[in-house]
């Protein structure tokens, strides 16, 4: 989230698309109802289903899953056509005026440089025209035919209301109603917020869904302002934290990233990351990359990391592929190229696409270790549960070790919420039986392996021997010790560069925040963006100050928000080029002539002049990007792409299947179905009564939603002779499930291109073969094994199935 949950109270229009906030985040959604009750805000829901969110919406429009880009580009087109653009913002704060190289083009749904063999783009033409001064060329007047604005205008022009209806199945009048409501937010005094979640990310073109809305928000001037922003409603309690902490294949902490094979040494690695500003006087904050990188290496390998050995650069693995994400790992596993797997509180058998493939992959492992407070289907994937898990244990050679862990009620530490708040919590209960916390378990695994390496030697033990492990009790580092390590400290006295006699931080003291980190090895910090969470002032994540000056929803003294306790990202964009708030009634920051003042920590140097330094300091441009150059694999602009399994061909290019550059493995292509065999458009989702595969273990939630079901329209039910409450079989190219049928008016057939009727089948997740709820089949038995082109998020939201009435599980029909 660029803004916080509590900031949503400041909005005038909430657009819930690609998510179902009321259902998945009820307590965050409270702020939508607050905005409605106290600001008279309106709520729009665009979704294939009339969701619980829609039940309290002011306006609902249906859309075919996977067609969001067309809808959003349609709205952008509407805004441009009707001159509903926040011009001052767009001109100053976006790259609208940047001139794009010759040779960039877009036609038939494809951008210039496409290589069908490689399923990839040559992205060299997707860049700015550079001037002799080394800066990108711009045309402030937006007259240049190749300036970003004109390219965008042209790019979206095909998405007329008619085209939107053909692609999305959204009736024109409903689309126009939504577009009109949204376009009203182009005035500086009206803001709109976008609340989205997995409904946008879980597509082979997920990143582009979000880009499309972000671009719309930018031209409406809604980024960085109170009640605006792009608000990704993260799923798990600390998934923001795990991403921030870099627990991913291609990441290090704080969005530093892993080297690739091409980056043979530290210098090469750093060259491609120290971004120089593309416009005069801009910040381009990543110029500080070395400070964070070196401090990170020092946190990892302490004394061993020296300037001489490039701060142990070689200890880091260098990737030969963009990332060993979950899909790639399970593909390799299924090929028999993975021997061991550790699932720390995770249930891949249930949560990953194409369960059949997951089962086969896990069966090929030598060993599987699971750490969880609860039973998981994954830890029992080898156990036969009749139709629900029809496997033969004898034929599965995988050794499984199941470790019982403590849960939140028994732990202590910090979690990072969707709004980037790091909230410390305390333990209240004794873990059951012999359950132990994850820190102890990970320490034990590490210490025991290190011991084995000391005794026996083995493959490249240096990083293992040198890993910094300075804890009072090495067997059980305390949350405070770890938090302090994450914050970082001075390793020697840090003196003021201006006045070397002045010591800013004494050796061994915590740095106040990342502004004190250095690239000479004199500081260490586990995760630079978190720096400031636990400094000499104490554990800032434990703060519980409830004050909220002028009720703006900032709560500056409640725990700690990264970075630097900043609550709204890009908040400098809430003021114009003179530093005056766009909307005085919604002031966040203001330039008082010498520096920035206001409710939030400025997202810019406090003394950076508003007319000179642009708000998007993390970007080389200083401005935000309507055009992303070569940064995304599937295009500098979002383009309409169908799901790999789509009930209709791509209107713009019938030959194009799915995302033209999305990675698909050979073995999976054979497991895609077509609309002849599988005529219905399925989508999977969560229900408010349950949380993933956890709450089925809990008798209360199990009672509130006890049994697996699918939702279909009355029309489809009539077509297939299905009755509400009866059993149906739903099958895709990958598998088949049995479920109860919920026949509802909340799902309506969509009328798409050429009068084609698309029937939607809604499939909630949540059930399995362990826990208190009734045993059930799993939605991911059906979902396809394909990920987003940029970040490999599996596409759970749009695939094809067939459906028929059937007999209950266990009863032979």
């Amino acid at each position, binding site marked *: 989230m660029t803004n916080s949950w509590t900031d949503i109270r400041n909005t005038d229009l909430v657009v819930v698309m690609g998510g179902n906030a009321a259902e998945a985040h009820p307590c965050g959604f409270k702020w939508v109802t607050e905005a409605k009750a106290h600001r008279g805000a309106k709520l729009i829901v665009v979704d294939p289903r009339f969701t619980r969110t829609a039940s309290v919406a002011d306006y609902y429009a249906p859309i075919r899953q996977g067609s969001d880009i067309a809808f959003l580009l349609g709205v952008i087109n509407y805004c441009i056509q009707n001159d509903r653009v926040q011009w001052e913002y767009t001109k100053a704060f976006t790259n609208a005026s940047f001139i794009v190289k010759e040779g960039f083009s877009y036609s038939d749904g494809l951008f210039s440089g496409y290589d069908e063999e490689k399923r990839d783009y040559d992205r060299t033409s997707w860049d700015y025209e550079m001037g002799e001064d080394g800066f990108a060329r711009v045309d402030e007047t937006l007259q240049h035919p190749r300036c970003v604005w004109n390219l965008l205008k042209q790019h979206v022009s095909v998405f007329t209301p008619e085209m939107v209806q053909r692609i999305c199945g959204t009736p024109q009048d409903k689309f126009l109603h939504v577009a009109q409501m949204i376009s009203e937010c182009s005035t500086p005094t009206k803001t709109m917020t976008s609340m989205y979640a997995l409904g946008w990310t879980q597509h082979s073109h997920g990143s582009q869904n979000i880009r499309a809305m972000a671009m719309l928000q930018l031209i409406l001037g809604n980024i960085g302002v109170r009640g605006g922003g792009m608000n990704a409603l993260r799923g798990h309690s600390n998934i923001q934290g795990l*991403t921030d902490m870099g627990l991913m294949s291609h990441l290090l902490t704080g969005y530093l990233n*892993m080297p690739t094979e091409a980056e043979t040494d530290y210098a090469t690695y750093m060259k491609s990351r120290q971004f120089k500003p593309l416009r005069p006087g801009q910040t381009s904050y990543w110029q500080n990359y070395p400070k964070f990188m070196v401090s990170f290496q020092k946190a990892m390998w302490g004394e061993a990391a020296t300037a001489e050995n490039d701060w142990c650069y070689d200890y880091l693995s260098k990737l030969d592929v963009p990332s060993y994400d979950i899909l790639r790992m399970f593909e390799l596993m299924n090929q028999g190229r993975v021997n061991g797997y550790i699932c720390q509180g995770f249930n891949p058998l249930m*949560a990953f696409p194409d369960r059949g493939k997951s089962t086969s992959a896990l069966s090929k492992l030598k060993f599987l270790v699971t750490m969880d407070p609860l039973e998981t289907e994954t830890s029992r994937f080898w156990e*036969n549960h009749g139709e629900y898990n029809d496997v033969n244990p004898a034929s599965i050679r995988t050794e499984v070790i199941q470790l019982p862990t403590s849960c939140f009620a028994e732990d202590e530490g910090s979690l990072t919420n969707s709004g980037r708040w790091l909230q410390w919590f305390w333990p209240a209960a004794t873990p059951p039986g012999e*359950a132990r916390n994850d820190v102890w378990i990970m320490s034990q695994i590490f210490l025991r392996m290190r011991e084995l390496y000391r005794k026996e030697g083995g493959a490249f033990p240096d990083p293992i021997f040198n890993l910094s492990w300075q804890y009072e009790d090495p067997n059980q580092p305390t949350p405070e010790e770890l938090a302090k*390590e994450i914050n970082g400290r001075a390793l020697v006295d840090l003196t003021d560069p201006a006045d070397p006699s002045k010591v800013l931080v004494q050796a061994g003291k915590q740095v106040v925040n990342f502004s004190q980190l250095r690239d000479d090895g004199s500081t260490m910090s586990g995760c630079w963006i978190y720096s400031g969470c636990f400094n000499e002032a104490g554990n800032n994540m434990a703060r519980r100050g409830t004050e909220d000056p002028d009720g703006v929803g900032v709560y500056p003294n409640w725990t700690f928000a990264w970075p630097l306790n900043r609550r709204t990202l890009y908040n400098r964009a809430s003021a114009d080029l003179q530093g005056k708030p766009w909307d005085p009634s919604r002031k966040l920051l203001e330039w008082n002539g010498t520096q920035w003042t206001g409710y939030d920590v400025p997202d810019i140097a406090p003394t950076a002049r508003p007319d000179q330094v642009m708000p998007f300091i993390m970007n080389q441009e200083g401005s935000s990007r309507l055009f992303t150059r070569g940064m995304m694999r599937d295009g500098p602009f979002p383009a309409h792409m169908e799901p790999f399994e789509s009930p209709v061909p791509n209107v713009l290019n019938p030959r194009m299947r799915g995302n033209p550059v999305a990675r698909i493995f050979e073995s999976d292509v054979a497991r895609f179905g077509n609309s002849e065999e599988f005529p219905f458009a399925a989508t999977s989702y969560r229900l408010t009564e349950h949380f993933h595969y956890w709450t089925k273990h809990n008798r209360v939630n199990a009672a509130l939603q006890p049994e697996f079901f699918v939702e279909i329209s009355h029309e489809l039910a009539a077509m297939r002779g299905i009755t509400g409450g009866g059993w149906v079989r739903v099958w895709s190219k990958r598998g088949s499930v049995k479920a109860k049928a919920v026949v509802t008016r909340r799902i309506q057939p969509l009328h798409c291109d050429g009068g084609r009727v698309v029937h939607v089948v809604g499939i909630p997740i949540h059930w399995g073969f362990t826990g208190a709820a009734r045993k059930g089949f799993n939605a991911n038995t059906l979902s396809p094994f394909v990920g987003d082109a940029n970040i490999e998020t599996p596409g759970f939201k749009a695939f094809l199935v067939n459906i028929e009435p059937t007999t209950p599980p266990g009863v032979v029909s």
Partner: protein
Amino acid sequence: MNVELSRRSLLKVAGAGVAATSVTAMGFGEAEAAVAAHVRPFKLVNTTETRNTCTYCSVACGVILYSRGDVRKGEHAELLHVEGDADHPTNLGTLCPKGAALKDFVKSETRLRYPMLRRPGSDRFERISWDQALDRIARLMKDDRDANFIARNQAGVTVNRWTTTGMLAASATTNETAWTTFKVAKTLGIVGFDNQARV
């Protein structure tokens, strides 16, 4: 827990929807013993309060755990009840159907209690000790790492990749746990390292 909770009584707070006059009229401040046969005795009396954060979604609602016994005093503690933290800016004490039933997650019958081992081809788990489990894991991991670690690629570049053992990090653990996990996994050279961010 180092933070004093607000103790405002619902019916005394401005905005609580109750006129101040009604406070005494409703009997507040007047002490009469609760009669068991009448109003049920308040069940949270003499419990230990602990500030915690809901373990489910990333709204991260503040919750207060009420338990018998105090772990911070080294006592054995049983969780009795969970309620939203009225002081929390985001949830203001409210909770969703999952958060409101957190207690039953903690006390679920399918909570794991002991390390278990499933031998190849077996159709059941058998209980083992922590030492057996951890030594076994360390051994399995080391053997695999030693056998399949890629120190250099064909070009002779140091790559230090261990691709044959993967790890999925939990999404509900703390940042501190995440840091520990990160250090261990990346140090070993595990590149097949991921989390639930995508699902």
